[in-house]
């Protein structure tokens, strides 16, 4: 199953959760937020929210700026 993670197309297993996507990018999920198809997924919902075919997942964090 293909999804778009931070703008890049990637193959993931069926029933992959948002939590698993986040863990694949960073081991320090503090200060991280996730948008699934442009909608915020609250942290409490990461473990139970599954991504679907062609979903777009953005995983964002605080960086130097401003």
């Amino acid at each position, binding site marked *: 199953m293909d999804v778009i993670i931070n*703008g890049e197309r990637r193959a993931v297993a069926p029933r992959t959760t948002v939590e698993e996507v986040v863990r694949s990018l960073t081991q320090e999920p503090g*200060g991280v937020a996730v948008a699934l198809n442009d909608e915020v997924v609250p942290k409490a919902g990461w473990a139970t929210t599954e991504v679907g075919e062609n979903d777009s997942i953005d995983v964002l964090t605080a960086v130097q700026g401003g």
Partner: protein
Amino acid sequence: MTHTHTRAGAEPAADRVGAPRRPAAQRPGAQAGEDPLVIAGCSFTSRLITGTGGAPSLRVLEDALAASETELTTVALRRVSPDAEGSVWDVLHRNGIRPLPNTAGCFTAGDALRTARLAREALETDWIKLEVVADERTLLPDPVELLDAAERLVDEGFTVLPYTNDDPVLARRLEQVGCAAVMPLGAPIGSGLGIRNPHNIELIVEQAEVPVVIDAGIGTASEAALAMELGCDAVMLATAVTRAQDPVLMAGAMRDAVNAGRAARRAGRIPVRRYAQASSPAVD
């Protein structure tokens, strides 16, 4: 909502003539540090808000933030990079500095709303420094999108601190829709051009019932002091420190400049005179 915010030093000059008043800092009972910056009910000792962009390393950034004595510091929100080394979030956290996420890079109200919602989730704060810019070349705020975004974010419960033009009318409109502060630019972001329209900044200060924070354009310490002398409640800067040849030294200079400018404003400067006024007694 009623505002108890008062603006030290804003009395008309005529009120100061004839009855010299002691500066607040020398009045009985006044303590050093008893002049907090209050934004949306939160009190800060420091009146210097810093950014984090442009620092050569996290180590230098951390030392500069410490030297600045800032208590409120902006961060941007970007996609996680697997090879990022260290985190600005950790730097702020271990130094007890409150993070102020921004919406840098947003060109429409819709972009800004999406970024603000993500920032609220990532950083667990409903404070947002709202930036909605018109184009890459100037990074000037887009007033139409900015006001729209501000109103919608206030409605969603955000504490909104908008980066705005040095336009007194727009500043008033932003305040009217419920922004917790207004942050007019001195000059374009990163330009170091200083305060290009001090008269407009004074007009914004005169009318505002929320804190006024000069934001962008400051290049060196004298310009930060000037902002405070004009009556701004705080100074926000990043590039002037992070891209200085010695960021840590400049951070300390900015801290001192903001404090000096604030004290000068509260003290009440002498009127400007056209001719000399002897400061020594006349010869008998």
